[in-house]
């Protein structure tokens, strides 16, 4: 049975409650008006009051049940005598159970493993058992909530106040989702990172210079010297903060200056959206462009100028394309901060006889510098968190080199590589992805925090 059925049932109950309560309130209103009075709340609010009492407990239960019941079903199946023939632990056992479940729910039609065939009946029985329990409990909860609230309806019942209180609670819960998400990110990263540091010491991880985890090696007795993340940090900084910024800062800054100071409104209205398209192209498209078109060009160029180690997966290809992607970020931040410089400063410079470019270089840019720097920091934080371009174009070998024609790997690349492999969740190679994620999270957070502070102070300086 699909988990949607109890939820649909709850929704149907809610609708019934809404209709019933509203018509009861209409009846109240009729008698109240005959006596020259009026209801406290409009009939619709009575309807919503009952509907909420019916829906909310039933839906909360249905959702909780859908995540709880698979465990209960499994426990009941394992308690069955037919399950005693299963292998004790491991992949085989999971495969047999999964197959039996697929057979029982009708996703598969024929069994491959005889053990699975034996388990189909227990599975079907357990599934039927628990889904019936879930359905009945959902129904009971909905009826209980609806019945309770329905009996409370009176002509002077303050339904609107109560419904509005519930709405306010809903608003508060919705805004708390952001806190829960942040908390969830921090908690999952901290928890898994702590497990990783149970295998590898933080010093080895943060300051080691050799990266070469082996997901197939035995997880016990892992030596820390395979988990030195310095080459990854270097690759990330070299691609995201050096090469990409060498492309993005001049191009972004000059674009912003030209579009705000020189361009005709017509040219500006055409080019600004075109620049913004660059930020809207999905990163997987950039990655493909980097791997298919840019990387071969760069390799040929490297070989032509006599660099024999030029590889078809190069830091330069990934960095250049990433730089292109970042141009709109730099340019829009520079745009904002130049626009924030008071007009009087510009007019003063022009009145003294400076040309436009002298005004820009000697007055506007120095005055806007804090904002521009903050914009660059935001761009860097975006570039080092970028994943698909480096996954597709930068390569997998961890190297400590300053030669941009060689392949290099980054933090994000290794997170993807460690988590999409076949490694188990208890292995330090898999867990290292979370430690890398933690570092990435902290660095981007710090960069953003500083940048936003700088921007804020900068805005205040000119207000």
């Amino acid at each position, binding site marked *: 049975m699909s988990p949607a059925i109890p939820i649909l049932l709850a929704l149907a109950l809610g609708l019934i409650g809404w209709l019933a309560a509203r018509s009861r309130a209409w009846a109240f209103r009729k008698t109240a008006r005959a006596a020259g009075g009026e209801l406290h709340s409009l009939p619709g609010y009575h309807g919503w009051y009952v509907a909420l009492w019916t829906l909310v407990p039933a839906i909360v239960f249905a959702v909780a049940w859908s995540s709880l019941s698979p465990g209960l079903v499994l426990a009941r199946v394992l308690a069955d005598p037919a399950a005693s023939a299963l292998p004790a632990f491991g992949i085989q056992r999971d495969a047999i159970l999964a197959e039996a479940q697929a057979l029982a729910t009708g996703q598969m039609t024929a069994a491959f493993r005889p053990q699975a065939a034996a388990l189909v009946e227990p599975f079907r029985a357990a599934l039927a058992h628990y889904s019936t329990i879930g359905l009945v409990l959902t129904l009971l909860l909905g009826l209980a909530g609806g019945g309770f609230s329905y009996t409370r309806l009176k002509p002077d019942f303050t339904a609107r106040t109560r419904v509005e209180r519930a709405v306010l609670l809903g608003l508060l819960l919705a805004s708390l989702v952001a806190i829960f998400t942040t908390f969830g990110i921090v908690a999952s990263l901290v928890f898994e990172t702590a497990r990783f540091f149970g295998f590898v010491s933080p010093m080895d991880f943060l300051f080691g210079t050799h990266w070469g985890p082996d997901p197939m090696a035995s997880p016990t007795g892992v030596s820390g010297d395979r988990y030195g993340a310095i080459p990854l940090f270097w690759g990330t900084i070299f691609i995201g903060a050096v090469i990409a910024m060498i492309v993005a800062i001049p191009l972004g800054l000059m*674009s912003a200056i030209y579009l705000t100071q020189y361009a005709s409104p017509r040219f500006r209205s055409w080019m600004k959206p075109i620049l913004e398209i660059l930020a809207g*192209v999905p990163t997987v498209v950039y990655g493909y462009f980097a791997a298919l078109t840019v990387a071969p060009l760069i390799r040929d160029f490297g070989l032509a100028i006599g660099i024999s180690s030029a590889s078809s997966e190069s830091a330069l290809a990934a960095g250049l394309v990433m730089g292109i992607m970042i141009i709109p970020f730099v340019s829009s931040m520079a745009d904002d901060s130049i626009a924030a410089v008071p007009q009087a400063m510009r007019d003063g410079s022009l009145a003294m006889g400076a040309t436009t470019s002298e005004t820009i270089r000697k007055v506007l840019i120095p005055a806007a510098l804090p904002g521009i720097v903050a914009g660059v920091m935001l761009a860097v934080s975006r570039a080092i968190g970028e994943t698909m371009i480096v996954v597709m174009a930068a390569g997998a070998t961890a190297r400590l080199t300053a030669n941009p024609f060689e392949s290099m790997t980054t933090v994000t690349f290794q997170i993807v590589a460690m988590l999409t492999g076949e490694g188990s969740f208890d292995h330090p190679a898999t867990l290292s992805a979370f430690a890398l994620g933690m570092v990435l999270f902290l660095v981007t957070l710090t960069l953003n925090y500083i940048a936003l502070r700088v921007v804020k102070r900068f805005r205040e300086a000119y207000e």
Partner: protein
Amino acid sequence: MSDIASSRLRRRYAAERRFKALGLAAVLFSGLVLAFLLVTMTANAIGGFKRAELVFPVDFRDGALTVDPSQLQGPQAAQALQGAGLADVVAFAAAKHVGEQAAAELDDTAWREVADKLIADPALLQGQVHVSLPVSDDLAAAARGDGPQPMKDLAGRLQADGKLVSAIDWGFLSRADATGPQDVGIWGALKGSMLTMLVTLGLAFPIGVLAAVYLEEYAPRNRWTELIEVSINNLAAVPSIIFGLLGLAVFLTIFPNYRSAPLIGGMTLALMTMPVIVISGRNAIKAVPPSIRDAALAVGASRVQTVFHHVLPLALPGILTGTIIGMARALGETAPLLMIGMRAFVATPPEGFTSPATVLPVQIFLWSDEIDRGFVERTSAAIIVLLAFLLVMNGLAIYLRIRFEKRW
């Protein structure tokens, strides 16, 4: 004016012109890169929307295919045709008209397309059908000029006779993933993307709008509110791959059965999209003038009624614009979905929110990893499909902004 002064002035004006030219060059360079990217993708994609096909007639009048027209109805029709030996009939016709060697290079599933034709129009069984059927990956590669010499010779011969053509492959838009570039299609990934986006929209839009309403209309100025605001701003800046780690560590632990399902992917992307909707929603709500609220309150509306009956409808175009932009970003997102396992080989379009699926950007990533050259064109074609969807979404956002946005 002295000579020194005028030459200095000339130099300064020259510097001015250089600076201006530099600025123009920067803008044009960015535009050119974009144009180059789009042109390369489109040029590659043209081949991706086509495939190599053999053209030959199949004659059913000789009675080799004994199938009762009544069997051609219902879901068993294709099986009935297979049982009657349609594959052999097609292979025989191919051998007769294009030669044994070429017939051997017919795609293994080519007969299914003939079967579809027959099911659509059983009257064809009484006559001769001209078919255009996909060839094997090897012959398709040879037709492009790759592969061993004998195969290239065969392809060249067939092309010269007009028997091997490159035809527009409408099936690309209706099939799912496959092992060879000749048989792949985009519909599976597209459907996965749509299901995922539905989940994302269903979660992120209400939560985002409600949170924006709370923060703008109700939140007291205190530490808690500040904490909410700080976390929303931070979430908007967290790299997308971190959301993938969250989805892996939290959602897949709670729902281990739904690995690589659109439900989990959509939930993960919803967390990523929600801050975008909150921020744009707050700006839109802030832009509604206070006089609207005052008027509603003055005629006796409660605060909830004021917000939901008056402020929110007026802010809706702005909120929708932000939502569409956030959804467009989510549609192109790959990394978090790789983390939660939406990279499996899925050969049938997903049936629902809980069946294994892949999405468009992940499909592009998976195909880009394939060695067969035929996938290069297919990948580019998939990219063009993705970009077309993004273009439509952004166009819709711009339209909404122009059509409904009010300046107060």
